[in-house]
């Protein structure tokens, strides 16, 4: 029986797909059979971030419409044997995702996978609500910025009321906060909401903080999940996130300004 994790945010451009790609890869690296599904029908991008855009033959909607079976549509990652990608359809409209269809695909995947990561589209329309409906856990990706925090809170309301767990009275979805594009320097200057500020507003369990990093764009340019760039700050931060999710006690990093040498300290605290 697989555990289903939705990566959600409400607002676009905060790092859902980057996170889905990194997190799924991280779980697979730890030996878990992991599938990552792109729910953004019409605007697929997970394939590009994962670097498998030229290997897409069948997609999620084909499987839902029973035009292809799961084995035909799942793309096995070239770097990691345990990792499979189910791309979204680029040509269909958002209404192609049906409740019954998504439920059937998730059920079939659950039989052979340990984790299923659902990469939600932005917004609160069908793709987004279906991505979260069947979830056991939710990673709420948030930027330290007013509109993102507000949208995250809105998503928390939807997670608590319009999910399978909420409707069947089961144990609620476990919600985790992932703060991305964080700049400790700007926080120190009073220009950016701090981790503590965001946590105080959303009152969520903090899964990790991903610093604003050049490595993220470099990784997406190359089609390599940033978690594979183990030397980079963002890569390390995502590795920590996966360890914390799996229950390890890992202290948070990249939330304080790095210590600098004498010369830089003279000019800037």
């Amino acid at each position, binding site marked *: 029986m697989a555990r289903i994790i939705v990566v959600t945010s409400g607002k676009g451009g905060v790092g859902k797909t980057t996170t889905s790609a990194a997190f799924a890869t991280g779980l697979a690296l730890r030996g878990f059979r992991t599938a990552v599904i792109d729910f953004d029908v019409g605007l697929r991008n997970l394939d590009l971030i994962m670097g498998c855009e030229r290997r897409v033959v069948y997609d999620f909607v084909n499987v839902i419409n029973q035009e292809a079976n799961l084995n035909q549509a799942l793309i096995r990652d070239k770097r990691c044997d345990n990792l499979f990608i189910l791309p979204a359809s680029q040509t269909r409209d958002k209404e192609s995702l049906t409740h019954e269809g998504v439920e059937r695909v998730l059920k079939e995947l659950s039989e052979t996978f340990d984790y299923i990561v659902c990469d939600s589209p932005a917004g609160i329309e069908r793709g987004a609500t279906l991505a979260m409906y069947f979830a056991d856990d939710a990673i709420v990706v948030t930027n330290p*910025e*007013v509109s993102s*925090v*507000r949208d995250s*809170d809105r998503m928390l*309301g939807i997670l608590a009321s319009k999910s399978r767990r909420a409707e069947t009275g089961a144990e609620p979805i476990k919600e985790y906060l992932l703060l991305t594009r964080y700049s400790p320097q700007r926080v120190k200057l*009073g220009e950016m*909401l701090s981790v503590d500020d965001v946590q105080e507003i959303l009152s969520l369990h903090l899964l990790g903080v991903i610093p604003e990093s050049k490595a993220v764009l470099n990784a997406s340019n190359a089609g390599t999940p940033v978690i594979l760039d183990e030397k980079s700050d963002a890569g390390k931060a995502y590795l920590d996130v996966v360890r914390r999710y799996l229950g390890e006690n890992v202290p948070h990093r990249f939330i304080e300004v790095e210590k600098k040498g004498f010369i830089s300290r003279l000019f800037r*605290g």
Partner: protein
Amino acid sequence: MGLLDYFRSTRNESAAIAKERLQILVAHERAERNKPDYLPMLQKELLEVIRKYVNVGQDAITVTMEQDENREILELNVVLPDEGGERRLRRKRV
């Protein structure tokens, strides 16, 4: 604090403003979200009943739901027209 910070006369404290705005907004939106969804319907039907007996306007009635630690308060507020000005009929249920 570095040497240059000392000379910086205006410090940017926009994050504090952002936090305050968000706290107010999020509290308000959470209260809205927790309202039962039958309130608009209830308001409409109550208005129809009242209009059978009293000639009141479309916006003469407001129904609100508030919640504190141990009780929910459904508040119904009806403004009745009167020659000498407005008369208010108010009922509270705990």
